[in-house]
């Protein structure tokens, strides 16, 4: 195994999935600012082309396609995600970003293709199995568990809980210590996300931004290696945006790999080490943030779209409403409801 226990990333171990992962950095604590530089340094010499190999890829996607009723939602030939970096996934509405997220996390199954995490194929895994491997995600529409308290939300994120088995649950002694340790960990995280004062309130009473924070904190309870954030800034009060951005950067500092979907180009520029642009289900460009605005394919894809301006409150509401409508359409059974001729569905790429 190359690069064992060394600050992974700058070792040019291109195309060889490394067994060591950057989580080891977490314990070091002395490398506060290092991982960013490491990821950027590692990616510096990577050519700006679609499907390019990364020095130390943690997620590799190959030939993945997903179609809905004849409509191709995702068709990615090759995509590698650099370990320990923040990768932004952008693209116009319907580009297939969320579908790709769903595929990678087991929430949806592709028609063809393979993808792997840390060298392990994730092909047929169910969502919870993917999560147990250390790939956690958040959702575009925040899924705070409304009628659970903030603390209960957090505790749910902890992995390997003894008390979650039916029989052991009946013997409180068998899980009480673990529960206490998890509670301490949860409180630490809540303090970091400034939610500790709300720990006993129902999650449903939190504001939109606080829910986003809670969802992120909850995901961190499982000590993930890869965190996938689906529009972490959507519907968040601008005052909270900076704090959220800071938290996303912190994840990288702790050695996690972050993949996020975002519409706001300022945000993408600010925090990404690498940007992947999707349109109509395909990856049309990738490169460091500064390369993207010069890319002709990207400009074409975005022409007429207006996602590069910061959202006003009204626009946020509208975006949120749209997203909700799309989700609702999906849940209520999108395009095929009536009529054989209505092939266009609303679910190809929310």
């Amino acid at each position, binding site marked *: 195994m190359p690069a064992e226990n060394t600050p992974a990333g700058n070792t040019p171990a291109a195309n060889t999935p490394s067994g060591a992962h950057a989580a080891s950095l977490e314990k070091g604590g002395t490398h506060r600012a290092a991982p960013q530089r490491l990821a950027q340094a590692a990616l510096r010499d990577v050519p700006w082309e679609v499907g390019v190999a990364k020095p130390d890829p943690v997620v590799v996607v190959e030939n993945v396609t997903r179609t809905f009723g004849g409509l191709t939602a995702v068709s990615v030939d090759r995509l590698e995600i650099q370990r320990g970096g923040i990768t932004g996934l952008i693209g116009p509405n319907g580009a297939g970003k969320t579908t790709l997220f769903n595929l990678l996390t087991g929430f949806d199954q592709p028609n063809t293709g393979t993808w792997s995490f840390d060298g392990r194929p994730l092909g047929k895994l169910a969502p919870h199995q993917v999560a147990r491997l250390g790939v956690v995600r958040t959702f575009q529409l925040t*899924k705070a568990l409304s009628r659970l308290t903030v603390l209960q939300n957090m505790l749910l994120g902890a992995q390997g809980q003894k008390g979650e088995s039916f029989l052991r649950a009946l013997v409180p002694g068998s899980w009480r210590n673990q529960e206490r340790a998890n509670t301490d960990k949860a409180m630490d995280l809540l303090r970091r996300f400034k939610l500790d004062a709300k720990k006993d309130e129902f999650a449903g009473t939190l504001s939109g931004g606080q829910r986003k924070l809670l969802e992120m904190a909850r995901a961190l309870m499982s000590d993930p290696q890869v965190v996938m954030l689906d529009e972490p800034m959507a519907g968040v009060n601008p005052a909270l945006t900076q704090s959220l951005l800071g938290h996303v950067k912190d994840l990288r500092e702790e050695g996690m790999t972050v993949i996020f979907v975002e519409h706001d180009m300022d945000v993408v520029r600010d925090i990404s080490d690498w940007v992947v642009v999707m349109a109509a289900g395909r990856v049309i460009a990738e490169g460091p943030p500064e390369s993207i605005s010069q890319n002709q394919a990207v400009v074409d894809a975005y022409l007429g779209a207006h996602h590069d301006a910061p959202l006003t409150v009204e626009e946020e509401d509208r975006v949120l409403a749209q997203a909700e409508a799309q989700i609702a359409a999906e849940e209520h059974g999108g395009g095929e409801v009536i009529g054989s001729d209505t092939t266009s569905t609303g679910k190809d790429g929310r």
Partner: protein
Amino acid sequence: MGDLLNALAVAGKSALGFQAVFFALLAIGLNVHFGYTGLLNFGQIGFAMLGGFGIAISVTQWGLNFWVGVVVGLAAAVFLALLLGLPTLRLRADYLAIATIAAAEGLRLLFRSVSASPVTGGTRGLAGFNGAFISLAPWDTSRRYPILGTRWSGGELWVALVGWVLVALLCLLVWLLMRSPWGRVLKAIREDEDAVRALGKNVYLYKMQSLVLGGVMGALGGMVYVVATGAANPDQFQNANTFLAYTVLILGGSARVLGPVVGAVILLFVIQFADTGLRALIGNGVIPEGLLSATDVAQIRFVLVGLGLMLLLVFRPQGIFGDRREVMLDAR
């Protein structure tokens, strides 16, 4: 005045007797399903029927011991839960609802059919299987005992007592489970399955456990019922009873440990009081025969239940004692 007192006494007996135990047990099971996990089981009465007939068939047809019959009934309920859960728990909630209501109704039709009557007794049902249980009573079961203005047979009293002990034990079980991390996962599934999946929990497994657990509780309810009445007849297990149990649950407050118990006592009292009271009023001629006849009264309870269910859901979904705020958070 005497009529009123009598109606109160009869209603009180029903609210404390095996009828309330029956609905409390069904509703405790539904509480696990619907209140905590968000599963829509509309065929709880089917589980109860399997429980009841498990005893009845085992004892009268197969000549087995009463307690073996209990095990058979529970096993049958587990089997039904697995059968229904395997295909539908991966699907959206209404598929389980449709499958369970269809299964309960299908089972009842099957049990009362001519071809099944050699085993189930058909529309006649089975009787004479509760002797072994009634004889365990520490008092004389052939006597009748006056309690609170009505008369209870020794057997009724014994079944009611054992039934309430069972209810208490199951409430304790639910309380223990729901304060554990296991219960936390169930409640989280009720709120949002996908979020729970994304946190690495095997949602399907938890839903299955919940379905089996609640189904077994329903089966116990069916057992109490057939043992108390001494007869098992498929038509006792009409599907409307499932919704009576839902009304019990929502009235008492779903996702509350004691909700089903409170709901059962109150609802049974109200229904029986209305029932006896109306009959008395019709008998007195206060309500003219043309408006409502004594035979209609039996249907009135379901009209009341239907109306109650609607009004509760619309105006007090949290039940009579619940906290409105909690329910308002439910964005679904």
